[in-house]
């Protein structure tokens, strides 16, 4: 991954009994970033921009990347519960929380369990709610590259696309995707990528300022779910990007960074 102006490190930190692989960079208030179903995507342009004002904490969840799988974690609520202890151990109380796709679902579960733990919440194309129109893309009936490609509205106009989905996939990357897919499978097989109780549980986030960001052309989690999130979280903001798929942070980086900055400082 290309390294921008902001320095970042990758190391293993102990949290809640697990050696957690953690990318950390930037300076300022803490921003905990939870990756999606294919794992940590690397230090991207959006990270570089946000790192100017925030200290980014980007762990690889248990079962992803170099963080060991925890056999007892069998669903998203287990993982969310574990993460809350990890946050205790990492001293990240009061952090801003941002989650992408499966990581957005995770962030929503964590916030619903413990809204006072976080300062502000950003959900980017989160899974977790069954869309009233359309269906969440079945990632297990596609190979990783197909799935990644389906997550963009226009790959040709997205220079960073080849960074996250190279034409020639290294064996290490292929292995990392397989590992990620297996853990994603463990977390989301059925009900597929959602938890029926989540819309009701999200009502508790009335105390937590929340921003929802979605690509209008999202083919992974259809945009109809955005409205359910918005309706379920009293006072939440919803911003939908036109001509944008499931990865607004990569496909519309400038607008994404501006939206997040504005929300976090409002």
């Amino acid at each position, binding site marked *: 991954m290309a390294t921008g102006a902001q320095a970042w490190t990758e190391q293993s930190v102990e949290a809640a009994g697990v050696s957690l692989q953690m990318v950390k960079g930037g300076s300022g208030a803490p921003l905990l970033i939870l990756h999606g179903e294919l794992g940590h995507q690397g230090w991207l342009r959006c990270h570089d921009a946000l790192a100017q004002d925030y200290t980014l904490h980007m762990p690889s969840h248990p079962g992803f990347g170099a963080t060991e799988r925890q056999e007892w974690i069998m669903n998203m609520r287990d993982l969310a519960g574990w993460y809350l202890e990890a946050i205790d151990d990492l001293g990240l109380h009061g952090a801003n929380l941002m989650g992408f796709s499966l990581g957005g679902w995770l962030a929503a579960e964590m916030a619903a369990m413990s809204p006072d733990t976080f300062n502000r919440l950003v959900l980017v194309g989160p899974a977790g709610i069954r869309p009233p129109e359309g269906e969440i893309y079945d990632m*297990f*009936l*596609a*190979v990783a590259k*197909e799935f990644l490609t389906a997550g963009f509205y226009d790959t040709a106009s997205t220079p960073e696309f080849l960074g996250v989905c190279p034409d020639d996939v290294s064996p290490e990357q292929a292995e990392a995707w*397989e590992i990620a*897919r*297996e853990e*994603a*499978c*463990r977390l989301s*097989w*059925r009900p597929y990528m959602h938890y029926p109780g989540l819309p009701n549980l999200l009502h508790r986030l009335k105390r937590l300022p929340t921003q929802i960001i979605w690509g209008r052309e999202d083919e992974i989690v259809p945009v109809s779910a955005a409205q359910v999130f918005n309706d379920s979280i009293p006072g939440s903001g919803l911003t939908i990007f036109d001509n944008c798929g499931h990865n607004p942070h990569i496909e519309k980086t400038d607008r994404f960074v501006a939206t997040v900055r504005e929300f976090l400082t409002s």
Partner: protein
Amino acid sequence: MFIGYFTERPYQDPKSGYFGATGKSIMDLNVSNEIYDAQLGSDLYNRYLDEKIYAEEMGFDGLMLNEHHSTPFCMGGAMNVEASILARITQRAKIVLLGNIIPIWDDPLWLVEQLAMIDMISRGRLVSGWVRGTGRESVAHNVEPHYNWERFKEAHELIVKAWTTPGPFRWEGKHYHFRHVNPWVRPYQKPHPPIWLPGVVSRDSLMWAAEERIPYLMLATEMEPTRQAFQLYHDRAAELGYESGPQNIGYLWKVHVDETEELAEQTGRKYVQGPSNPFLAGNEGTTNQALLQLPGLTSRRRVLPTRDVATAARGGSAGPGGVLSRPYEQQIADYTIISGTPKTVIPKIRHVLETIRPGSIFFWDGDGAMTHDDAMRSLRLMGQEVLPAVREIADELELPGPFEVDPATGKPYVAQVNGPADIPAEAVVADD
């Protein structure tokens, strides 16, 4: 020697576009059932049952069934239904299920009851095999592929306990939870119907079979890797302190017998002219890569020698696209298809038996685009000429089957009854 008969019961529809010498390749999970012809389906189900009855008449020891889901290559989506019918309409042959896909069912107790009823109605002729299933099965019944192996082992333990331990008892496992296990029907055979395990790819499964002293069957694999994989079983048995033998291993492969060499050649080619079937080399269809990479279904590292030469469509590593990867001629040359008159077929079967030394064999016939007449001609010739000759060869090569020598003890049965002669005392008491 135990000799069984098998066909995968393909849905043969000449107007489907994927049938015959010019038929299109199928990609797994990509054929809609909207083309299903009810009359044709009904005729085929009855045809395949008729052939099983005739196979028994012709002297086969076992009538083998299998199960797959959401696919035209195997119509046995509910194999236990076919087995139930055979239990009543056949008299002597074992009904060999290879097998029930135990990890995909959330309620293994339903299997406990179904299988015990089949054993009852057949008066103890059930051989109850288990399989783990392919990705197709996990998707079709939406069961976690990553827990396939855990669920397999837990379901096996639960089913055996429900068959052998008087109820009611409670089962609180990781994947299965039952508060009142007390199925009224209990198996006819004691302590329970024999359990066999077929496979191709997973080393875990083969090792587990060796550890449980369960016979393991290789399905249509090439001979040398099959021999190597069986050696793993025998080595594991030796490590565990028992001597495994032919009674512990079985082999299924394609054998067709016909009246003339010309007819045998013409009919043998029909193996690769039915609807694509990932298990029928030469017509595996187009690989659905995503299905093969279903997360966690099979260990990506602990695989068998047979996997290296299995086609990609079957979960193996060989074969680029999985389409027509092993031509008919090559399969004839390496004996994975044997098709000919009794005179030419018998010495070839002998060669396979000498190489692999199985105690059970299954002739896979009447498949692909073969017609009912094709199947019946072959069954007749098998009964008249091939089976008697193969039994003599097996005796000469000392290849006892699992009903002659107990796979669990390595000892000959005292009397050939429907199961081990040494019935555990507690099982007898429990049944009274």
